[in-house]
């Protein structure tokens, strides 16, 4: 299911598919415009820019606005980042201050490798 996210903030729709093998579809669930939310958004954007430059699509969803979506998507803790594509589906919880963990969680780095 592909919810058309009205709250998704248009992020870098950068550099087309070109030679990049995989397009990342990421969804970030936050609760309101708190400091924590802002921090999470900024952190994830930075990580994506660094490691997925040009091959990701990030939707930010405010669960206050879309509570039903929180239920449908089984959101319990926020912020939660869901990697919808490529499979398998992955989740990372937190404000993403720990970039390494985010990368491991998104299968962007083999577990434990620097």
């Amino acid at each position, binding site marked *: 299911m592909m919810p058309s996210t009205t709250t998704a903030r248009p992020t870098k729709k950068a550099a087309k598919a070109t030679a990049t093998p995989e397009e990342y579809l990421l969804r970030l669930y936050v*609760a309101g415009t708190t400091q924590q939310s802002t921090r999470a958004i900024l952190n994830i954007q930075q990580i994506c820019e660094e490691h997925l430059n040009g091959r990701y699509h990030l939707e930010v969803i405010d669960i206050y606005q879309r*509570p039903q979506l*929180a*239920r449908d998507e*089984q959101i*319990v*803790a926020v912020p939660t980042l869901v990697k919808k594509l490529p499979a398998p589906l992955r989740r990372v*919880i*937190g404000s993403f201050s720990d970039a390494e963990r985010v990368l491991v969680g998104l299968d962007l780095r083999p577990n434990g490798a620097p």
Partner: protein
Amino acid sequence: MKRKTTARPAIEGIVKAQTGIQGLDELTFGGLPRGMATLVCGGAGSGKTLLGAEFLTRGATQFDEPGVLITFEENEKEMARNVASLGFDLNDLVDRKRLVIDYVHVERSEAPIAGDWNLEGLFVRMAHAIDSIGAKRVVLDTIEALFAGLNDSTILRTELHRLFRWLKEKGVTAVITAERGDGKMTRQGLEEYVSDCVIMLDHRVHDQVATRRMRIVKYRGSRHGADEYPFLVGANGLSVLPITSMGLTHIASDDRISSGVPRLDNMLGGQGYYRGSSVLVSGTAGTGKTSLAAHLADAACRRGERCLYFLFEESPSQYLRNMRSIGLDLAPWVDQGLLKFHAARPNLYGLEAHLMTMHQLTEQFAPQVVVMDPVTNLITVGTVNEVKSLLVRLIDFFKMRQITAFFTSLTSGGQVEESTDIGISSLMDTWLSLRDHENNGERNRLIYVLKSRGMAHSNQVREFRLTGHGIDLIDVYVGQGRVLTGTARLAQEQREKEETFERHHEYVRKAQEQESKGHLLRAQITALQQELESTVADRKRLEAQENSRQQMRAQIENEMARLRQIDRPGDASHQNQAR
């Protein structure tokens, strides 16, 4: 639903929310603390989830309080299926917007945690669910699952703390279930957060009989039953049995009902048992206890009342056949729905389960008379004390409902007459004793009223006979320091009859004798009277003769004197004197 719990108003100032769960509201004196959270902890399969589900279902159906079920371990479908066995249709409630089920799925150690977070997702979902139907009740089952999926217990604990506070602010009455931990109430120490009311559930197997028990560990600001109370998961949800604590508050009826045996009614102050009283009939095997019970059942049905009959030894059909042999055909009452049997071997399940079944059947059937035959068989599934406590609860339960309860108790031969196997006689209002009397090579049955509270009952023994047309009570022969029954009584009665006859004969004979003697005397009196009369007459005649003779003589003398011309007064007087 017809069941209305008789919850007392909380006097402690705590507002309570009735659970509608049978017995729990009595135990908590009105229900769970309204607007607060109650922790329900217990091991796997102890009934936590069912308690939560029933709390919501009853709330939605009986108390107009919609509910939200946040389930962490079973999804909506599984949940609905599991509680369907209790007669709860969650899907229907969901369709009618009386219930929202939200399955919060947290996979074990799935999501890595990178930085700080909170449980706002859960909050949002709960708020959404609550607001969507205006829920007043929330159940979280089992929130500890979060600890498996979110392995950052510091934040989680802070968040849970916030969650419980939030629930309170929301004003919903919450039930939070938790796994029992080793050495503490819950595995994750949730009792630290939720401390207004804590209920512990337990599922124990004792002698291969599983019993569920419930205990209210604490209830801040409210009194509550402190013991462990057995409960059962039945076809109508949970039933807790806090009956003992209910106290002696039932109203005693002046109404009397027939025992079905007119002569027995006579013995019981002429009117039979009190309605709503408990009657015990004890006796050795084959003394007619069951037959006596059958008469009561028959009499109740004749009055158009309902009778619930618990059989622990016979099947209903066997029972009906046996009773037909003494002229009682109870089958029509069964057909008319006035008489209902429940036959079960006592060891089929545990005491509590029996008690529960009895409760439920009584609730459903609403009888005026209940018979337990024989209650002593229950002892095979419990200790004496357990059975006694079961009976105390049962009797209280029946009395509260003005149900006349009839118990038969089998005493083993050679036992002291006035003691029953389970020492329950003190609980009984009326105690009839049936016993065998062996004499002259025959056994005869005797019945007497050992006690009967509140009525002038007979202190005499009656002979108890089972005939082709029911029970017959006959006066026994009491006299010459002996009590005779059966043929001995008949023989004695015959002897007495003969003696009486003879005595009468003798009397008649003597009376006749005296009669004739009287006649004789009277005749003699008449004769004497006549004799007397004739004697008197004779004497009178004699007197008259004498008088006339003297007169004549005087005349003659005068004549002679005149003739002789003697007229000398001196001479005459001299002559007269000389004569």
